[in-house]
């Protein structure tokens, strides 16, 4: 068994490790750093928002000022100076909001093409509609027309505020309230863009919807807000991807995602998160502090979260399901990889309220280099949740003797008819597994990739095809050099 190597030369990283690390040179309209009520008024005015939304933002902001940053997560980072961040940055050419694709700045189109996300519809993978968010603004949304024919609304949230204010007002903040937690409150105050999805009653969304988030400008934070509403009996599959340039400064990404599923509705939400992770010394990288929550309001509704988390310097993220409707179902499938000096504290909450609600949690954590990873989860079965069931499988794989893997599962059960089962294992890649592969002529690095992919298979199987391929590739790139 050869020894496990963690150190690599910095220049190797620039080429292999993070392919999305380039900067787009584009003129921007960026607010100077700092946060006060004027900044919020400015953002709201720029977006031509109605009075109620401005007030909602201000209320969240005032609440945020009374809150303290949470420090219970198993992560370490220097204090964040919230006054050193710019809360609004928009490419000049996009200042007037999203236009038709023909008018989108070619530089932006080029950026997305480089990332493998062609925005010209004829070039794009059939069957996937894309909303592209660049810093604080949505720059393009494809297939809007086709979706509209099916009754589906898919647009930037700022556009939804303008065109469908009643819908936004009815649902915004009903899953994650303005003062929910520190980062959610900050997001509610300053969110700039994000996607809005509305699937009307009985409609099966005819294509996959996806949003691609890109942070580009220096010293800005990205605060997007996504709201997905699935009415009775509808179905939607939504994907999101994220990248950012390679910089020595840390950048903050504090998003909020709210999902509402009514009776018999199904939402499948998949994420491939590949924000810049920083370098091997822990310099730079995105702080990814995200609040994602689904409200399974309706009977027999179902929400399924699938995430592949390979990027970010720090991840703090717990996509959750509130299982309110009787017989509603929540699922969480996660693969998280921490390497170099990445730290992730991630998991889920399943709150069982309705009768015969069911949840499944499958979490696969891989820790390499000096990475530190924690699974943090909560399964709460309320007294009302007669017959509730949960199954949790939580496995960690360790590569190298300087990394860490931690598990903090909270289980709270108040109903005697409930069944919950939690299993967790932690192990390293088996020497015998490696040896077996090698004796069949497979290189050690390939063998590690094969074993890791096998380890993640249960989760990758949940991803839509295009993303599964992407996820596999990301894991490979990320693990390159983890074993020498």
């Amino acid at each position: 068994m050869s020894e496990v190597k963690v150190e690599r030369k910095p220049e190797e990283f620039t080429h292999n490790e993070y392919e999305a690390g380039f900067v787009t040179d584009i003129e921007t309209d960026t607010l100077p750093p700092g946060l006060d009520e004027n900044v919020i008024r400015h953002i709201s005015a720029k977006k031509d928002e109605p009075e109620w939304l401005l007030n909602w933002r201000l209320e969240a902001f005032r609440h945020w000022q009374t809150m303290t940053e949470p420090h219970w997560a198993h992560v370490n980072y220097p204090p964040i100076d919230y006054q050193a961040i710019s809360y609004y940055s928009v490419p000049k050419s996009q200042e007037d909001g999203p236009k038709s694709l023909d008018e989108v700045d070619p530089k932006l189109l080029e950026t997305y093409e480089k990332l493998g996300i062609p925005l010209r519809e004829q070039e794009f993978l059939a069957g996937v509609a894309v909303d592209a968010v660049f810093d604080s603004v949505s720059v393009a949304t494809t297939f809007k027309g086709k979706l509209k024919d099916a009754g589906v609304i898919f647009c930037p949230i700022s556009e939804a505020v303008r065109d469908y204010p009643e819908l936004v007002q009815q649902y915004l903040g009903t899953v994650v309230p303005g003062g929910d937690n520190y980062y959610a409150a900050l997001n509610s105050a300053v969110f700039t863009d994000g996607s809005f999805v509305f699937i009307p009653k009985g409609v099966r969304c005819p294509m996959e919807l996806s949003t691609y988030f890109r942070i580009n400008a220096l010293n800005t934070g990205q605060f997007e807000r996504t709201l997905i509403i699935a009415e009775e009996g509808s179905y939607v599959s939504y994907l999101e991807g994220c990248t950012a340039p390679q910089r020595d400064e840390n950048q903050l990404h504090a998003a909020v995602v709210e999902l509402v599923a009514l009776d018999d509705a199904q939402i499948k939400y998949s994420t491939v998160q590949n924000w810049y992770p920083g370098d091997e010394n822990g310099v730079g990288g995105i702080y990814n502090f995200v609040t994602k929550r689904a409200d399974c309001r309706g009977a027999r509704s179902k929400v399924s979260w699938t995430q592949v988390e390979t990027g970010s310097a720090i991840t703090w993220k717990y996509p959750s399901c509130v299982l309110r409707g009787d017989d509603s179902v929540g699922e969480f499938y996660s693969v998280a990889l921490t390497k170099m000096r990445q730290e992730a504290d991630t998991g889920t909450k399943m709150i069982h309220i309705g009768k015969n609600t069911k949840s499944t949690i499958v979490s696969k954590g891989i820790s390499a280099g000096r990475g530190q990873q924690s699974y943090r989860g909560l399964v709460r079965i309320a007294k009302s949740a007669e017959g509730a069931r949960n199954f949790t499988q939580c496995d960690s794989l360790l590569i190298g003797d300087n990394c860490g893997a931690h598990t903090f599962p909270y289980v709270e059960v108040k109903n005697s008819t409930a069944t919950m089962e939690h299993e967790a294992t932690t192990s390293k890649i088996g020497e015998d597994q490696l040896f077996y592969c090698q004796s069949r002529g497979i290189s050690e690095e390939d063998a590690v990739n094969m074993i890791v992919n096998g380890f993640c298979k249960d989760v990758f199987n949940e991803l839509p095809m295009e993303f599964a391929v992407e996820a596999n590739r990301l894991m490979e790139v990320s693990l390159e050099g983890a074993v020498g």
Partner: protein
Amino acid sequence: MSASLQQVRETAWQAFEQQGLPTTRDEDWKYTDLSRISALLGEQWWQTVEQGELDVTAADIPELDAWRMVFINGHFDSETSELPAGITVTALSALIQDDPDRSVELLEFEPDAPLSSGMTAANSALAIDGACICVSDNTKLDKPLYIQYVSNGGTSHLRTGIQLGKHAEIEVIEHFVGHHAESGLTNHVTAIRLAAGASCTHYRLQLEAAKQCHAGRVEVNQLADSSYTLHAVELGGLLSRSDVINRLNASGASCHLNGLFVLASRQHADHHTRIEHNAPHCKSRENYRAVLDGRSHGVFNGKIVVAEGAVKTDSAQSNANLLLSSNAEIDTKPELEIYNDDVKCAHGVTVGQLDKNQLFYLTTRGISEEEAKQMLTFAFADEILAKMENKAVRRFIEKEAFSKLPNITDLEGMLA
């Protein structure tokens, strides 16, 4: 009292006055509200009180052949005690008189120790008695040492130290008992040190009176190839919280923690355990089960920490819970903190009902569903008790545990 002991007491008292009791806002105390202690016992809840004599033999474990040490309301009772020769067993109260420096060592308060709280500080400041046991190298105590802590209310702070030399061996049965109707508090700390190759089997049987509050702490430090086995049983008291800190500090050390809660009415029991793998080639096994009836509330938090360099760690933890009543509650959190890759760690938690296939099987043998449920409940809990090698203790606990569950009708039959 020597100056240094005085200092230890004062430092601890100051720490207590500063910290007070932990609250449910502290992560480690999230599910256990200690304000009930001050509410139950009044503002000066921490004050020790001396109360009358008790018939201690009434509380004995039948057919247990053992040396005995008895503490009544926090004070050593030499009359009912029968101490072994050959090893050093003294009461802390005597040690404070005769060898204050050694008592300092035992009573010192470490504010940074894991799960240390105002309760631990109060114990450092106020404990005036307890058992001090020293077993020298290569010595094995011929019979178990049975320590009875009997209370009839009031507050007792007790501190017990067990120190085993190389390859020494002991079986200690700590039994907390009372039959009084008033509320009271037992605040007890056991500190155990095991030298290389030493072996300690420790029964900790909490059968306090119905309104008693119980705070326990067991701190174990283990050296190479030593082995420690704990059988922790929570049956009595109204509010009980115990912390077990087990450090595997040298290669080859192993520990087995077995725990059983059988709770009914409004009982609340909380166990926080922390096993630290601080050296390579150590092994830990932990099995906790709870059977909760009535409006009882069980809390289990089991943390396994594997330090950097603790390679070839082998650790397994399991926690299973059975809710018999729709008003019972369990909060459980099995935690792993692992800082090295050469480990084998697993944990599992279940909360649920009796196995349907097993129920069906039993009914096809002509057993009524109700009785089948009783049998399976008994079997569920008895899996933990089956790990007890001391048959007298096991039988005693089986009877005490299952007589609490009103539905078990043929206990004698199941035990036969």
